[in-house]
């Protein structure tokens, strides 16, 4: 009988972690639906980027208010998780506050947790006001209606409840309160519970707290909040090249080399094992590379990219954040399709281009890299826009007419305007 809580706890913990791991493996599978891309080399620089940008939150403080609040929540989240370790041990072995054996230091530890929990609570409430009362512009864009808005708020409610439960749990722990060490915040709440069955309240708070954490863990997979995990690999695999450098398509290089080679035999039979030529550019998520798909899962929809985008600022439909959200939504849809069809993707008559992202959005981009620069976790929306333009131009011949004119000029006379190449030096004598 006395073992019952331990067993129940072990079951909840096991199923929570197992379900999470199951989704992690789906996540991994979905990301690897993307094409392979060379991320070798620059190991040191990549670790430095991860340390500075993700661990060190380096780019967050470029917007000081949200940046500092975010650092509070981030530090709080990471450190308070030490407490989760204690809860897990207590739950499995029926102990109570096992870490208290370390003596006076325990009070310091819990004291720090309580202060952090209070700060996180305040920060999260401010976040809620920014989204729902102040209505900061970047949270009000058209792509933020419906689920994305609810998702953002749910995360805040989760955090408010979890932090609240943590304080209540401490406030109603008679033994802990009587130690009078580390109850820096909870002591003010303890009197509120006088006259009630504090032992019961403490147990309920404890159980709901740990269950809530496990539910939150599993919520990640369905939420923009995945960034708390993926920001780390994403900043590691983020580009280490100058932002202006767009990749040169290898498939095209091979074709061009063949065209330029005077010894090439146009009638030569292709080798039996030669791979069929790649699709040029991307019309669906499988045509993107896996880093771009990782980018999509990492995006937490903060909208810093969109608020810096010159096209979006001047009322065009393009929103780099929407590009990332659409990519993820389509990827999730493809993943579900695969799950429903025994591991095989069944054509569903849909694709990223057209059904999610329109030509109008793609052609509004100035390739200025403002979105890439603004992203606090090294996401590159521009690379996806470019891949889709490549598909439109090289597979569909579907560029705006003026761009076709520009391109035929380059092809015919080596300049985007209809001037003769032979007149290139005329300026000298003008």
């Amino acid at each position: 009988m006395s073992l019952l809580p331990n067993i129940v706890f072990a079951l909840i913990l096991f199923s929570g972690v197992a379900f999470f791991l199951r989704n992690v493996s789906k996540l991994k599978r979905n990301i690897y639906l993307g094409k392979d891309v060379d991320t070798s080399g620059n190991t040191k620089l990549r670790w430095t980027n991860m340390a500075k940008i993700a661990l060190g939150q380096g780019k967050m403080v470029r917007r000081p208010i949200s940046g500092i609040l975010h650092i509070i929540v981030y530090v709080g989240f990471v450190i308070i998780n030490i407490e989760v370790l204690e809860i897990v041990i207590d739950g499995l072995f029926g102990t109570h506050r096992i870490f208290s054996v370390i003596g006076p230091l325990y009070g310091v530890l819990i004291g720090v947790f309580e202060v952090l929990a209070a700060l996180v609570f305040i920060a999260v409430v401010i976040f809620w006001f920014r989204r729902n009362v102040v209505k900061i512009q970047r949270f009000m864009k058209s792509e933020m209606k419906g689920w994305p808005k609810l998702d953002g708020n749910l995360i805040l409610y989760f955090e408010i409840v979890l932090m609240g439960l943590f304080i209540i749990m401490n406030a109603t722990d008679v033994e802990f309160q009587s130690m009078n060490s580390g109850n820096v915040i909870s002591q003010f709440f303890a009197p509120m519970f006088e006259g009630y069955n504090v032992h019961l309240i403490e147990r309920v708070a404890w159980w709901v707290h740990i269950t809530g954490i496990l539910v939150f863990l599993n919520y990640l997979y369905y939420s923009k909040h995945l960034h708390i995990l993926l920001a780390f690999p994403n900043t590691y695999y983020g580009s280490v090249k100058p932002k202006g450098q767009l990749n040169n398509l290898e498939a095209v290089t091979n074709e061009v080399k063949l065209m330029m080679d005077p010894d090439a035999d146009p009638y030569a039979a292709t080798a039996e094992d030669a791979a069929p030529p790649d699709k040029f550019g991307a019309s669906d998520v499988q045509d993107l590379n896996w880093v771009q798909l990782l980018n999509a899962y990492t995006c937490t929809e903060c909208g810093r990219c969109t608020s810096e985008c010159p096209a979006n600022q001047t009322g065009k439909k393009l929103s780099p954040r929407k590009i990332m959200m659409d990519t993820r939504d389509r990827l999730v849809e493809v993943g579900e399709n695969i799950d429903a069809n025994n591991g095989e993707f069944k054509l569903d008559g849909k694709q990223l281009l057209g059904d999610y992202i329109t030509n109008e959005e793609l052609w509004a981009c100035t390739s200025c890299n403002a979105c890439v620069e603004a992203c606090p976790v090294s996401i590159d929306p521009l690379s996806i826009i470019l891949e889709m333009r490549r598909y439109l131009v090289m597979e569909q011949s579907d560029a705006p007419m003026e761009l076709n004119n520009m391109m035929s000029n380059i092809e015919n006379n080596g300049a985007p305007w209809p001037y003769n190449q032979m007149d290139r030096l005329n300026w000298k004598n003008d």
Partner: protein
Amino acid sequence: MSEVLKVPTMAEFAATGKQPEVLFWVGCAGSFDDRAKKITKAFVRLLNKAEVEFAVLGTEESCTGDPAKRSGNEFLFQMQAVTNIEVLNAYDVKKIVTACPHCFNTLKNEYPSLGGDYIVMHHTQFLKSLLDEGRLTIEGGKFKGKRITFHDPCFLGRANDVYEAPRDLIKKLDAELVEMKNCRKKGLCCGAGGAQMFKDAEQGDKEINIERTEQAMEVKPDIIAAGCPFCNTMMTDGVKNKAEGQIKVMDVAELIANANDL
């Protein structure tokens, strides 16, 4: 015009068996656009003044392929790149300077993996190096008391992290360098990048160049300094719309040539 510009070509150099110090990549805008041609000439005057042994490709130059690449036409881009690289390598070119950040970015970043490896400099970086080596001096007097703001070209700034060279040059003019709220990493695009120069903008509520011009006007400049022929066009257009006659748009090379009465 009686003006004599010394603009030798690579072919002329090759004929005498000599190598110039640097190849000046003029670019399409610099060769054909009436406004940009003035920038090209101003830069050449400075090169002549500093007695730099440079050469141009002249009729052997062709579009780098930047607007094609950014429109998604990778085929056309690589065809342009490969032919240009063949010409450049045939002349054994080591160092290139260009007044166009788009050419700069493409030559510097996107040519190497196709076989074209060169030291590539933006003209503001090159002028700065001439200044540092004492080959060029800048007379400041002419712009004394003028307020100049520098509009960062995306393909020089964010794309390649070059922010200081143009500013260092402007500071030599005895003028007051005033910064827009959105400058350097946060600099707003003029609206021309990504091949937008060659097409109408999508439906919106404003043109990007107007937005940028308004940002510039907030700091009340006498001159908007640019470092890109396309930014120059966009900002000139913006000024025509918003503050005709009050603000001039000039390339950094023109500022310096002007200051030196060239």
